[in-house]
């Protein structure tokens, strides 16, 4: 057995089903060994997408997504995917091939200091120096990636160590890492404080972030909110914690969120910030959020608490455990009046939206908000909706109906081209689910090579491209902030999507008429097959 055999064996021990990646000489021993294992490999068309696909896989399964790429450019290409996973706290183990360890540091062919380059984007990184260290390192890597504040772990694996003989393979049963012990259970005294304050609160609010999904706490939070009649809002990453049509759900907060969600945040006298990091796009003035209210910040990462907003009650712990503990108490604050106020705000907003619906739509285009609403309404109950980045993402966040399904997007890094590979990873993990990627024509062209991967491995993802032939969100920014001095946002020259679909053997649909929307969407979602839908919108539409 050599080092490569050992790492593959370790992946089997970790029940890894899929490895997303791209081989090259420096990772060939690994890709040779994996032929003997019961692990499926998926050859993506660009290393960045291997990390995004693994991210989609990890988000849907709760397991660690695994990536294996070669040294040098393979490793540097994957960095954006790693950084995206890091910003969204997605558990990945990324194995990069590396040049011969005796040559490291001498700038040989395809050598890149990937562990150095990735230092600020990974939760932890390893360079394997001895093949006998492989079992311990892999065991630790999987543990680190998927516990505490989750995130990507890098394993840089020099080719000579992949080929180095290992005499005895023993996969450790336990982990010994005295310096890494994430706090899972919330402190009882702090929980008591929260309960006391909640009982007194007149206008309590739960604001969920991406942590709610990562800790698998969505169901618990939903039950808690239902039982104690506490309204819920979400950040972009927290969307889907509550079904969007749930009467206790009051939308997304932040500068791209719903006004009624932000009004709820402003007027609440107590906020339970759950697994949200108070990022600039969610909370515009974080230092004011604690004014006139009790701010409880619950997070598994102590460093997040107090980083952007100073909480009244810090509570370190895994959300699932914390909400289970909170739920043991009979809290039930009197919230009916507060709920009625919030429902009033929502009604106002919905009426305003309806008024907008009557406005004239540019002929030959559809209203993107109508499209997202109708599309998500027609999707299967437990479908996965993956939004890319840009206007399509903001329209999606504001209009997507989420029932029992999931909503994925990259809220942290905002990495264009995330949707198609992430949707592919999600679909691979659960072929029974309907998976739809929605992207703009800029983002689509950053990842459209993955149509080849989808075709090769028969991964029937549905892709809707919101086409306006511009980089819409940048154009919108330039419209508002640069008085229509548009600079480098024109996507003229983009390919004919019908031909692209034909080239990859996909069904193609074109929507440019509101009257045909429902029929087209029905056709788009029918059958478990890949479909590319082009949805034309007016470039002047703002999100």
């Amino acid at each position, binding site marked *: 057995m050599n080092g490569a055999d050992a790492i593959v064996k370790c992946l089997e021990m970790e029940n890894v089903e899929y490895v997303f990646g791209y081989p090259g000489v420096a990772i060939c021993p690994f890709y040779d060994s994996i032929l003997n294992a019961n692990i499926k490999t998926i050859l993506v068309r660009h290393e960045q997408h291997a990390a995004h696909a693994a991210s989609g896989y990890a988000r849907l399964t709760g397991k660690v997504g695994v990536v294996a790429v070669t040294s040098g450019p393979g490793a540097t290409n994957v960095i954006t995917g790693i950084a995206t996973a890091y910003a969204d706290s997605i558990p990945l183990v990324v194995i990069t091939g590396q040049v011969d360890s005796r040559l490291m540091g001498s700038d040989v062919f395809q050598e890149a200091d990937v*562990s*150095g380059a990735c*230092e*600020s984007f990974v*939760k*932890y990184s390893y*360079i394997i120096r001895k093949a006998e260290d492989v079992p311990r390192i892999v065991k630790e890597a999987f543990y*680190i990636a998927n516990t505490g504040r989750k995130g990507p772990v890098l394993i840089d694996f020099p080719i000579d160590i992949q080929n180095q003989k290992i005499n005895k393979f023993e996969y450790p049963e336990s982990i010994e*890492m*005295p*310096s*890494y012990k994430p706090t899972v259970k919330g402190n009882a005294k702090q929980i008591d404080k929260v309960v006391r304050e909640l009982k007194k609160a007149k206008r309590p609010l739960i604001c969920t972030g991406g942590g709610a999904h990562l800790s698998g706490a969505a169901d618990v939070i939903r039950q808690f909110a239902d039982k104690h009649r506490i309204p819920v809002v979400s950040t972009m990453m927290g969307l889907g914690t509550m079904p969007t049509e749930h009467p206790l759900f009051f939308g997304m907060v932040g500068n791209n969120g719903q006004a009624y969600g932000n009004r709820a945040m402003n007027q609440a006298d107590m906020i339970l910030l759950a697994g949200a990091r108070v990022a600039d796009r969610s909370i515009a003035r974080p230092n004011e959020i604690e004014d006139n209210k009790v701010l409880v910040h619950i997070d598994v*990462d*102590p*460093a997040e608490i*107090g*980083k952007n907003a100073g909480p009244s009650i810090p509570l370190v712990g895994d959300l699932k455990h914390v909400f289970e503990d909170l739920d043991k108490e009979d809290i039930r604050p009197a919230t009916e009046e507060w709920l009625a106020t919030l429902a009033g705000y929502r009604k106002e907003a919905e009426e305003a939206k309806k008024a907008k619906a009557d406005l004239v739509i540019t002929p030959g285009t559809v209203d993107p908000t109508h499209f997202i609403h109708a599309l998500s309404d027609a999707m299967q109950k437990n479908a996965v909706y993956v939004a890319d980045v840009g206007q399509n993402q903001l329209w999606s966040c504001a209009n997507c109906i989420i029932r029992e399904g999931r909503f994925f997007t990259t809220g942290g890094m905002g990495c264009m081209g995330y949707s198609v590979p992430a949707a592919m990873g999600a679909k691979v993990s659960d072929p029974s689910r309907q998976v739809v990627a929605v992207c703009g024509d800029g983002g689509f062209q950053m990842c459209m090579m993955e149509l080849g991967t989808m075709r090769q491995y028969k991964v029937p993802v549905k892709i809707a491209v919101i086409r306006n032939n511009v980089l819409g969100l940048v154009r919108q920014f330039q419209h508002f902030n640069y008085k229509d001095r548009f600079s480098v946002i024109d996507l003229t020259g983009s390919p004919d999507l019908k031909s692209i679909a034909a080239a990859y053997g996909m069904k193609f649909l074109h929507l440019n008429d509101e009257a045909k929307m429902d029929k087209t969407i029905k056709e788009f979602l029918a059958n478990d097959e890949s479909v590319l839908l082009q949805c034309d919108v007016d470039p002047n539409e703002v999100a």
Partner: protein
Amino acid sequence: MKRIYNVLVKNQSGVLCKVSGLFWRRCFNIDSLAVGETEDNAVSNMTIVSTGDDHTQEQIEKQLNKKIDVIKVKTFDEKEAVCRELMLIKVKYTRENRRDIIDNCSVMNATIIDMGNNMMTIQICDTPERAQIFLENINHIRIVEITRSGTVALTKCKEG
């Protein structure tokens, strides 16, 4: 406000880079950094002196604790600790100022550890403040080179 961080880390390659990289990335200031092995050769001690407001100080401590190679972080003010800094100063001397240099050294407990025809190297190992005073006292002499170890510190044996 100055704060001292006594950081116990795994004694392995790359750790210094990970810790100093954290300060760089998060825009925390490093006034000085000294690293050495502890009584356990698997563990190194980093003494980091940093200046920042309360919020920054809290973040430094939390972010350090988040690093997986960091075993323990102790943080304290200068007055809660005994601090020392080693400074080596190479100066040019002349027949006229030689006596003056020796006097300055003897007053401040500094030692001349190397000497040539017209240059000498002075060593001072003292609190960072006294080392600084010494430097100012010999300011009129032509200084050729200085190297400083950075502050190393341990909390005082007796509290209060």
